[in-house]
């Protein structure tokens, strides 16, 4: 079942959009894939699937794609795994890309397998580093075992080499308004009558992008759902709110603000973990922070091993005190002459 790998070329990036809004990880991938394509001497191709997505396609050119393939049809809005997977698989089989990169969002992780399985492609999950080895194979690196190990995954005899990539690990490039390229509309091979699922309703709010924040205050299970002290602290620090999975699962904070293995990777100058235990899956997403502060009432909480400064104390007391101090510092009348 191995294939002739030389018959495959070009680096593809899936541009994830919902209702015209593009997931930021798509642009991050496009920037990273620009370098991979250059190293391989191949073209960078963006794949846009959706309805009325011409603006998205043009933006993909400005963000670095040499070409854009557009599958535009009402069947693709809102997203469903089966039509997306089917269309993408068809394009992969018809055009034989060498590398295919997909954001490690719920959407990306939902349908990547739907493409990789029928194509018998190698698929690596949730990568945090990408490279090309001396033989021209993609090296996809991903943390394993709580981030203690970085595993390198290769796919030597199958194509395409597919990977999902975490949000926030690469930096998006600024769009260049003068950049142009070819936009090709492809045949839509999916028929509504053949779909296996239907979306009854979909409610999404504004999604937050915590991956760019300079300062982050993260709420954990210790808040027990009372986020006021954390929000006040975030306000006083001019920081973005983030959360552990516990706080997200409980419905206190939206999933788009979850930090960690199944959330986002953040790299702020300051990360304040409030009532967060410091589980490996959480730490994995915040390890790139510059300075980490932990506030926790359990002196043995693992978060203290991953923090530069720790205060053992009740967050409901510590946070308001911090807020007072910070606000005093901001108040010019308090500045000594």
């Amino acid at each position: 079942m191995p294939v002739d790998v030389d018959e495959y070329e070009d680096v593809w990036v899936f541009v994830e959009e919902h209702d015209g809004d593009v997931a930021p990880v798509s642009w991050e991938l496009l920037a990273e894939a620009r370098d991979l394509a250059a190293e391989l001497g191949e073209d960078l191709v963006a794949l846009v699937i959706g309805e009325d997505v011409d603006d998205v396609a043009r933006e993909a050119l400005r963000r670095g794609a040499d070409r854009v393939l557009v599958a535009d049809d009402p069947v693709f809005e809102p997203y469903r795994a089966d039509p997306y997977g089917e269309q993408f698989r068809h394009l992969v089989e018809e055009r034989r890309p060498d590398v295919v990169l997909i954001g490690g969002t719920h959407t990306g992780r939902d349908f990547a397998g739907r493409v990789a399985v029928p194509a018998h492609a190698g698929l690596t999950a949730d990568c945090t580093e990408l490279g090309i080895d001396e033989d021209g194979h993609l090296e996809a690196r991903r943390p394993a075992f709580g981030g203690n190990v970085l595993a390198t995954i290769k796919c030597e005899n199958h194509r395409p080499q597919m990977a999902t990539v975490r949000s926030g690990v690469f930096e998006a490039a600024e769009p260049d308004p003068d950049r142009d390229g070819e936009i090709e509309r492809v045949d839509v091979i999916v028929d509504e009558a053949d779909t296996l699922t239907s979306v009854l309703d979909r409610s999404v709010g504004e999604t937050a992008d915590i991956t760019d924040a300079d300062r982050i205050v993260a709420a954990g299970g210790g808040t027990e759902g009372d986020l006021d002290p954390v929000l006040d602290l975030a306000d006083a620090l001019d920081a973005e709110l983030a959360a552990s999975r516990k706080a997200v699962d409980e419905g206190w904070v939206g999933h788009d603000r979850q930090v960690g293995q199944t959330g986002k990777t953040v790299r702020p100058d300051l990360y304040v973990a409030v009532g967060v235990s410091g589980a490996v899956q959480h730490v994995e997403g915040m390890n790139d922070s510059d300075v980490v502060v932990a506030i926790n009432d359990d002196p043995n909480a693992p978060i203290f091993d991953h923090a530069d400064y720790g205060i053992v104390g009740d967050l409901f007391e510590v946070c308001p005190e911090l807020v007072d101090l910070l606000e005093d510092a901001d108040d010019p009348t308090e500045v000594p002459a």
Partner: protein
Amino acid sequence: MNDQWTVVVGVKQVPDEDDVSLDPDTGTLDRADAEAILNRPDRNALEAALRIKDEVGARVVAVTMGPPMATPVLEAAVAMGCDDAVLVTDRAFAGSDTWPTSLVLAATADYLDADVVVCGEETTDSSTGQVPPGIAAHNGWAQLTYVEELDPLPEDEQIAARRDVEGGHERVVADLPVVVAVAYGENEPRTAGLHRKIHAENEFEPVELTADDLGVDEDAVGLAASPTQVGGMETVEPVERERERVETPSELVGALADEGVM
């Protein structure tokens, strides 16, 4: 139409991730002293499957692909309330990545005539989350991942689900057969009753299925049929942190000012 559903639950034995240690000298993983446990997200899958049974009646069968050593996770599933359990085991499966693994589980689901396959979100040892969509893709079935709630609709041969999507939720209806991956922590897994525990540990024997039983070509599974290979493992130097304890908030503000982050 009145046929009772068969719900297949995929479970996996994994090393307790809190126990996995790294040999600082060789950089190799020491999993030997890690306790083998039921992958935690699979408990949510079992609970979701048993709720289908509670609601509409169903035969719930736990399945694991692994060595005979993995039988305790099947016992745990039976103790929780599964009607039966299957150990899919064959030397030919050794070294399988997610492609052949999902092929074997897809064949098993087909063999068992599954209407619904329920899996955990991902495993804590490899955390790819790729197996549930892989099963669906191999069989050409519908899939629902990141599921928070399930509503069986037996009269329509469908299942409805609430899914977590970036920034919100959606409700989706899928035709059977369907593969469901339940979001970790989304329900409160029931505890096993003493009676069932005793039954699971003493009377229960899992059904064993091999590649041959499933009609799976041995060349399509195992290491050789896996498109991905692990090319290396590097230890990552843990991020050095100051680990300084400060007593008071004002000390903290001072320290942060010194760091230049205020």
